[in-house]
């Protein structure tokens, strides 16, 4: 107990220290003569804790808290000295619309049309990556001595393409292959080179995800499968892979969300006018970044549903596992 001011000490610290439990705030030895009044309804801490206990109270509190946070951020943004200029440069509704629909005669392309190209590249790349990455992962997991050189190659491949920045891979393939003047290979469109580079680089990442999944399947599963008379290949197909893939769906989708965004990098090859490049051209033509905001919104519209879908899969998988364990 503080020697002086003990009467006020029981009352005033409460509003300023709502995080402290009452045992600390109140007097340790028996009821305090002053805080006794607080127990009759004047104690803000007890009221708040009761608020948290009811469902409605929780909703109200979280709403108020959310509004306070968002309100604070928005207020800070709106009242910042340069706010007006930032808003007109990044969030100008008229310019956002112009960037969305595009106007080639003024020198810029539609960001809305560009996103369709992103989606196309993403879908094609995703299918190819799933196949190539699985092949790499299986090669790395193989035990056969005959496959040793392939195993080494797979390790080198993964090390190399995970380590090299994606943009350099895109440059090397997109500018390097045409310069070789090889038949067929050197005469593809930039989109093909770009998607090819994405597949090559992302397969390295995704193969590691596969490998983690394959390793997560307990050896007892393989042993039981073999003891039931399944051949190694059949055991892999019907016992190991289904379990492995189920485990890795969340990290796989994680990689695919980032693949969606990385399709924008293909634009460095020139002919590819995807959403990000269209926004870049818009901004450099009219000196306004609103096109980037449009592209960002479009990318969010693509990735947020995918993220929610991932959450859903995780929740479903968890529910199934828990159900299985009881």
């Amino acid at each position, binding site marked *: 107990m503080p020697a002086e001011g003990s009467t006020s000490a029981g009352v005033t610290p409460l509003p300023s220290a*709502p*995080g402290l439990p009452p045992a600390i705030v109140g007097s340790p030895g028996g009821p305090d003569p002053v805080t006794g009044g607080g127990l009759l309804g004047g104690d803000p801490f007890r009221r708040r804790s009761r608020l*948290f206990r009811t469902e409605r109270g929780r909703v109200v*509190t*979280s709403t*108020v*808290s*959310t509004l*306070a*946070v968002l*309100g*604070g*951020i*928005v*207020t*800070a943004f709106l*009242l*910042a*000295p*340069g*706010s*007006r*200029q*930032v808003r007109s*440069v*990044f969030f100008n509704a008229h310019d956002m619309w112009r960037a969305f629909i595009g106007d*080639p*005669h*003024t*020198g*810029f*392309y539609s960001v809305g049309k560009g996103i369709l190209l992103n989606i196309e590249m993403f879908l094609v790349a995703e299918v190819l990556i799933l196949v190539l990455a699985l092949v790499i992962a299986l090669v790395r997991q193989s035990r056969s001595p005959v496959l040793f050189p392939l195993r080494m190659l797979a390790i080198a491949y993964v090390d190399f393409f995970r380590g090299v920045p994606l943009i350099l891979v895109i440059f090397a393939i997109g*500018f390097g292959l*045409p*310069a070789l003047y090889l038949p067929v290979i050197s005469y593809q469109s*930039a989109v093909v080179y770009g998607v090819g580079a994405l597949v090559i680089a992302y397969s390295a990442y995704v193969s590691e995800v596969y490998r983690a999944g394959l390793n997560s399947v307990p050896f007892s599963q393989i042993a039981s499968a073999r003891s039931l008379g399944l051949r190694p290949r059949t055991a892999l197909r019907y016992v190991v892979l289904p379990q492995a893939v189920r485990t890795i769906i969340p990290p796989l989708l994680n990689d695919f969300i980032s693949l969606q965004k990385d399709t924008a990098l293909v634009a*460095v090859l*020139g*002919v590819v*006018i995807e959403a990000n*490049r269209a926004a*870049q*051209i818009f*901004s*450099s*033509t*009219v*000196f*306004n*970044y609103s096109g980037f905001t449009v592209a960002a919104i479009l990318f969010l519209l693509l990735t947020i549903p995918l993220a929610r879908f991932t959450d859903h899969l995780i929740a479903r998988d968890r529910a199934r596992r828990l159900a299985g364990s009881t």
Partner: protein
Amino acid sequence: MIFRRLAVAVAVVVAGTGLGLAGMSVPSGASPRTEGPGNTAPLRSCTYSAIQPFLYSPGHLTVATDAPAYAPWFEHNRPSDGKGYESAVAYAVAKRLGFKPSQVKWVVETFNASYAPGPKHFDFDINEISVTKTRAKAVTFSSGYYTDEEALVALKGSPITKHHTPAALKTYVYGAEIGTTALQYINSRIHPIHTPATFTTLNDVKSALVDHRIAAFVTDTPTAQYIATTEIKHATVIGQFPVSNQHYGLLFQKGDRLVKCVDKAIAVLKRTGVLHRLAKKYLRVYTSIPVIKP
């Protein structure tokens, strides 16, 4: 429990910060920082001492350009040697404003960042930037120091060098550097069937031409001439488009007051023939280029 209380505490702090900021900025007015650092006095004269408070770094004229700095606007990617048209113009402007060459400080500013809102870290940017009305909403431009003409570059012996009637011109695949008015030129004048290729840098455009990924590209005439005569020996300038009335301007922060003095300096450089002489020296005046009408 702890987390929720933490969240409430954070909310209160953030809201408080917002209000605090509000309190701070309301009296000073919510106007963006388009003026020199902390001074609102008008710029009365353009003498060396009068302009000091209006400089990014007093005692220096801070000039920005992109890296790499391309010839013939700069030489050997070295803006500070005073060679190349734009480098020479920057030093000529600096001299008119009373600076010694050693007081000119060069900084790198990429084109895409040069028009960002917020404070600029240079007095002006000189980077072959075409002045347009929409662009002038975001930045302030000086008066023109060069009239922009665009030309078409292709490899010698390629089909476009022989067939470039307005109808034939529509059938080729063109390239341009993004952010340049060349793309606008291609789309609004030539109306090609194929979408033109846009590249991040001029070097990418050049490599695309050499690798036959594009049939031709559009760039300003001096650059086109430089590339065809010096950089890509088997390239040629097919022709120049009719004059467009576009010019290059120095880029300033929106509302920068130094532009008044720089405009005066440019006017003097124009009247006394300095700009013409520099153009002749570095850009040469090419009269032999045929004009093609798309």
